[in-house]
């Protein structure tokens, strides 16, 4: 396991995707409130630079007695790919509908620094 220090927490403004390079891989790092997410910037669909896309929140739908309701989840950020606009969870890397998963990395904050754990694939 390799741990990469990508800078002080203060360098990561809230709800903003910031691109860093670690071991030759482009990674999108995004602070979302008290959490920090890290996602490899490569779309599992066609290898687009994923983290250059639109940052939004997850959108799900469900039945209710009054009809289908669509819910936006403020605590669940997703990135919409800059190419085909497919969406991936920053937390899990999963696509909105199963079948594709972007690579995510565990993130720790220690001594005010953001540390990304790069594991062997």
């Amino acid at each position: 396991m390799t741990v990469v220090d990508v800078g002080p927490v203060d360098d990561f403004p809230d709800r903003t995707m910031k691109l860093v390079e670690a071991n030759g891989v482009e990674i999108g790092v995004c602070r979302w409130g008290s959490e920090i997410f890290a996602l490899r910037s490569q779309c599992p669909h066609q290898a687009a630079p994923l983290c250059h896309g639109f940052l939004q929140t997850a959108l799900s739908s469900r039945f209710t007695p009054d009809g289908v309701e669509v819910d936006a989840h403020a605590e669940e950020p997703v990135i919409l790919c800059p190419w085909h606009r497919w969406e991936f969870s920053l937390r899990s890397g999963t696509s909105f509908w199963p079948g594709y998963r972007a690579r995510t990395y565990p993130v720790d904050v220690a001594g005010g620094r953001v540390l990304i754990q790069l594991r062997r694939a």
Partner: protein
Amino acid sequence: MSTLRSAYQGPIIDIDVHQRWRTVDELIDRLPQRWRDYVLARGGGPRAALMPAGLSYPFQRGVNKRLEAVPEDGLGTDFELMRSQHLDAYPIELVNLSFDIGHEVTQRNPVFSAAIARAMNDWVIETWLPRDTRIRTTIVVPSELPDEAAREIHRVGAHPGVTAVLFSWNAFGKPLGHPVYDPIYRAAEELALPIAIHGAAGETEGNMAHAVAGGIPNSRLEWHTLLQQPTLTHVASFVAHGTFEKFPRLKVLLLETGLAWVPNFLWRLDAHYRILRAESDWVRRLPSEYFRQHCKLSTQPFELTPRKSQLIELFEAFGGMDDLLCFSSDYPHWDADNPFFVANRLPRDWLPKVFRENARQMLRLTETEAAAV
């Protein structure tokens, strides 16, 4: 460079790449004085939009491109971006430009439409072709004036960088086999240029015919999914009107319609062979035979099935698809395909045909130009 490994390492001909001017001034400057005055007076300024009314399915945040292909100032198609993101990122031998589908010629004034077509062709020949030896281009024509369109094909069609005639407006709202359009096909055949039909382009923007059968859909998702529908009608029309009997060397390139519609469509047409023949004496062969001899399709937007084998199974049920497909990326649009991704979804022995040989049979690539690459 794409981070994908590709099953195909050979040279790539990309038959559908889109280019647009940074500002419309580039076009207006190439109009005759009379039409410059008209544009400026009509719009009240040099940035007057040339696009006539059409169906409106605007994209999320108004961006129809891959986000990284949007230039910093947001204007037009940037050649340097195209070079770094596409031409140099893959082993591209040639790209074939097809404007931003060319809908500016869908003017209600046919004479203005003809002037714009000439300006667009001059613009692409003067500005884009010299930029890189890998660039080739389609030309646009004013289809509402078929004889004028034929003259425009003769005016610029001999240029060695020109590969095809982009039929960007179905001006009469008739399926394209209608004989009113024959002068265009005659001129194209004379110059050995294929006709390129871009999915629903001539219907969506020109709105003389419906882009979708059965009613105008509510969403871009629905409209975009059915981009192939006008193309179906046009191919059936070429068969029924004997277009390929009248112009036996004419080729037709079907752009941006996807692929999975092909088997069902041609099976249905073939099943109607005897009826088509009863109604039209000049239908002498099975529709699928005309199709296989005269038509090819761009691969984009490439269908993605849950299992890779599903799409290939469908193709193989039809048979011979490897001779019909020409790779296209659709760069820089939002739904553009990565060539390596497409290569990895197709059978390996199809790849030299799909990425190069079929396009070489289709586009008019002159010997000298081909040698220069």
